[in-house]
């Protein structure tokens, strides 16, 4: 083997260059020389060396496309050495995207028919490496010929070349199917290997081929048996296992062909074992084999080699859905793997652990997972939380766990966690005291985690009275004064770490505390008024509104800031919350509507015939007439609903729209489709006398369609003993601003007739 001296000298020169600049200089000189030499027609044996030099330069990352044509020329040369380097260059520089690749098709064709098998093999190798679809189509018949009639050296290469062709051009699979079948009868392992891969490819692409090759399964089993049982064959041996490569590939093929029996579970080394395990699990083998397979995986898990443990966990992941119990037995080992140093192993262990969590082992598992939290990537915390949600054994445990997650990694938690947690807290009324104490303490220690701070502020605001009472069965009693609580909230308000949303939470919480505490109301007023000139528009608006509550509507403050009702989750999206929020936003401090059921009397000159509405109402209607704030509690809820985004009140809370002389009318809206909704009107009578002939009439703007269903009745007994409901179906295809006028008429017990009209301008629930 004569060394190519010029090439090696160049390599030495490049390596001895001390700086990038020097190296570039050397390479540029060499490339110029190579280019010059390429232009010469013939310079003897140096051509291959030049191309080799160019390939080296290419590997270092420098451009070498000017060598493409030279490759084409060298491939066509009659000399073997030049062909060899030419084909190597073709594989490195040309790929199917280059136009020059088409030029070598003819050369390959000629070489495939060459008398020398090494030349043929070069051509086959190149075709299998970079053959484009057109080339494959052109040369497929050649390959087929080679598959049948040549020596085994060429046959094995042709088989793999056929695999490449089938991958590129699926239709040609038909062409190779018969040849593939006959190849299985070969003794040569290389050919067998190629044949098996080819058949695998054919079966993957084409289910009919699958059927045909199913018959070959006994042959394969025979081959496997031969490999396993037969004696030591030094050629193919790898550490005592005869030809593991072939065994593995046969196993893989049997995966597809659904063997009914495999006797391949003899212990023959880990790679083969692994492949057989996968085979057993994938095919519908009998349960005895499956148990055996899982046990083998369990043994892998205990292996010291990290690689083995990794693949064991990967395989267990695949079967945890079906063989859950079997995998549970290995839970301890898997959880131990969480503590491994290696990142890949840890990730696999985490996924598997999350899949293994169930109601029975949730406590222990969560303990482990929480220990793991501090060192693991952000995505995992969210999944931990989801998992805990599904299997929480008790509310208190659930809250504890989520708090723990928030304290350790609150920055990475998803946004929905905050409303979810709040909902959870409101639902567990017995734990309010405990929760608020815990959150308060958490707030005192650390205010950097936004989600935690938000939840804590909300709770302090909502359950401040419980906090200040001091006693709580579940935690140690601690004396929290009103000043302490307000200090905590003020710290949040003033901290530079708080986001505007967090500040909003804190401000609202401070406001709510004004009704829950007795002594420091002035302090609260001063805090709130400071923020009346805050730069942040949202905070400023809130502060101004709260100020208004203090000044003008102090009598309503208690009602507005009452405790929130239990929040129910429902699926009708954000609309409810946003509308209520919008309604609150529309409040101008000067024109704050009355809360609750009061409705101003329509001025006389505005009593219009209901039918006029249908003609298009041009009169300016006072925007504030109809819609009172839905519920006293939902005003405060409306604020928070903006912050919490997705959280909404149950849309089934009736909205009072009319109240006069003891007769009240409430409304519930439900969206039934994109443009349709159903409005349910409920009337009740709180006077001491009965009301009869109670009727409702409704009118809507022009493009809205209305359909009133039959009322439940027309008699309203005294003192709210019974109600009358009426459903109205609305369809708003043009999405105009929906308004509705309702005329109420009834007879009192004395016989006098009453009539009244009310206009509803905005519908909660839309």
């Amino acid at each position, binding site marked *: *083997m*004569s060394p190519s001296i010029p090439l*090696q000298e160049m390599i030495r020169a490049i390596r001895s260059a001390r700086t990038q600049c020097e190296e570039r200089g050397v390479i540029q000189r060499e490339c110029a020389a190579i280019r010059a030499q390429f232009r010469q027609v013939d310079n003897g*044996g140096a051509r291959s060396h030049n191309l*080799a030099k160019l*390939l080296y330069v290419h*590997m*270092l*990352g420098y451009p070498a496309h000017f060598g493409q044509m030279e490759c084409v020329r060298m491939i066509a040369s009659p000399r*073997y*050495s030049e062909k*060899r*380097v030419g084909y*190597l260059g073709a594989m490195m520089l040309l*790929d*199917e995207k280059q136009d020059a690749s088409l030029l070598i098709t003819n050369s390959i064709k000629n070489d495939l028919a060459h*008398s*020398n*098998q*090494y030349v043929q*093999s070069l051509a*086959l*190798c190149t075709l*299998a*490496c970079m053959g*484009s679809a057109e080339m494959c189509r052109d040369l497929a018949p050649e390959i087929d010929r080679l598959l049948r009639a040549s*020596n*085994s*050296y060429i046959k*094995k*290469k042709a088989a*793999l*070349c056929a695999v*490449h062709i089938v*991958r590129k051009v699926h239709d040609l699979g038909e062409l190779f199917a018969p040849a593939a079948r006959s190849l299985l009868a070969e003794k*040569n*392992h*290389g050919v067998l*290997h*190629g044949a098996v891969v080819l058949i695998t490819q054919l079966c993957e692409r084409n289910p009919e081929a699958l059927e045909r090759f199913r018959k070959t399964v006994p042959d394969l089993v025979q081959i496997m048996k031969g490999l396993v049982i037969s004696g030591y064959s030094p*050629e*193919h041996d790898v550490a005592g296992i005869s*030809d593991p*490569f*072939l065994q*593995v*590939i046969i196993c893989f093929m049997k995966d597809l062909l659904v063997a009914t029996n495999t006797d391949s579970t003899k212990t023959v080394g*880990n*790679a083969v074992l*692994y*492949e057989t395990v996968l085979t057993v699990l994938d095919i519908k083998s009998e349960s005895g084999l499956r148990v055996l397979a899982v046990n083998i995986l369990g043994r892998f898990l205990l292996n010291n080699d*990290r*690689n083995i*443990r*990794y*693949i064991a966990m990967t395989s267990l992941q695949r079967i945890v859905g079906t063989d859950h119990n079997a995998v549970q037995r290995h839970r301890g080992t898997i959880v131990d793997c969480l503590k491994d*140093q*290696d990142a*890949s*192993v840890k990730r696999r262990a985490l996924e598997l652990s999350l899949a293994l969590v169930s109601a029975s082992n949730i406590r222990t598992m969560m303990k482990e997972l929480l220990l793991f939290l501090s060192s693991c990537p952000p995505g995992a915390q969210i999944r931990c939380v989801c998992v805990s949600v599904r299997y929480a054994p008790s509310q208190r445990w659930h809250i504890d766990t989520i708090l723990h997650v928030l304290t350790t990694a609150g920055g990475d938690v998803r946004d929905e966690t905050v409303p979810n947690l709040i909902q959870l807290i409101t639902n567990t009324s017995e734990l309010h005291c405990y929760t608020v104490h815990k959150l308060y303490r958490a707030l005192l220690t650390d205010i950097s985690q936004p989600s935690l701070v938000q939840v804590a502020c909300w709770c302090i605001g909502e359950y401040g009275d419980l906090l200040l009472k001091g006693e709580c069965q579940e935690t140690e009693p601690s004396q929290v004064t009103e000043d302490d609580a307000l200090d905590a909230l003020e710290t949040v308000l003033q901290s530079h770490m708080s986001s505007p949303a967090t500040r909003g939470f804190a401000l609202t919480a401070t406001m709510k505390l004004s009704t829950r505490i007795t002594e420091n109301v002035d302090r609260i007023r001063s805090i709130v008024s400071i923020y009346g000139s805050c730069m942040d528009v949202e905070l400023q608006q809130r502060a101004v509104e709260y100020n208004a509550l203090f000044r003008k509507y102090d009598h309503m403050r208690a009602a507005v800031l009452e405790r929130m009702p239990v929040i129910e989750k429902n699926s009708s999206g954000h609309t409810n919350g946003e509308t209520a929020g919008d309604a609150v936003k529309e409040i101008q401090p000067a024109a704050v509507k009355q809360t609750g059921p009061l409705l101003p009397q329509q001025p006389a000159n505005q009593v219009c015939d209901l039918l006029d509405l249908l003609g298009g109402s041009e009169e300016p209607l006072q925007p504030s007439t109809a819609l009172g704030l839905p519920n006293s509690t939902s005003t405060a809820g409306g604020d928070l609903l903006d912050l919490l985004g997705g959280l909404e009140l149950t849309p089934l809370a009736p909205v009072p729209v009319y109240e006069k002389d003891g007769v009240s009318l409430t409304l519930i809206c439900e969206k039934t489709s994109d443009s349709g909704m159903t409005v349910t009107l409920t009337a009740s009578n709180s006077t001491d006398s009965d009301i009869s002939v109670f009727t409702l009439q409704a009118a809507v703007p022009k493009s809205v369609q209305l359909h009133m269903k039959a009322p439940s009745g027309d008699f309203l007994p005294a003192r709210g003993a019974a109600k009358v409901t009426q459903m109205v179906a609305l369809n708003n295809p043009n999405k105009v601003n929906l308004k509705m006028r309702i005329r109420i008429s009834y007879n009192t017990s004395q016989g006098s007739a009453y009539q009244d009209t009310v206009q509803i301008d905005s519908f909660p629930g839309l």
Partner: protein
Amino acid sequence: MMRFLLLFSRQGKLRLQKWFTPISEREKKKIIRDMTSMVLARQPRSCNFLHWKDLKIIYKRYASLYFCLAVDNQENELLALEVIHRYVELLDKYFGNVCELDIIFNFEKAYFILDEFLIGGEIQETSKQVVNRCIESSDMLQEDDSSEWYEVELFG
């Protein structure tokens, strides 16, 4: 199916690259960068398998060279390790106690050996002897650079 095989040194210099699927030059450079940074960042005694996009990456370090092989997701990783080892054995047999310098200065030979061992992303020949014999015969053919061809009988 194997997607690509890369050999690079501890300093991240590429010594050999073999791509079994058509990829643009830019993509290749990017993949090389990603692989070198990922593999070189691994701890010494960690697991040899990585996940990258939708491929499995199996790497093994031999002295100063990292062998990095990317396979499809359904492939057997342990077998891929064996493939890498088999290739190293072939190189060792050919060069006699192979070291990185051998591969640097005789990179085209390394490619030829690889082409006798793997084709189109699959294993071609499982017998070490056969591969070695083929390479030797090819080399003899190359030396005998005359226009006369002769058949070389091969056992197989």
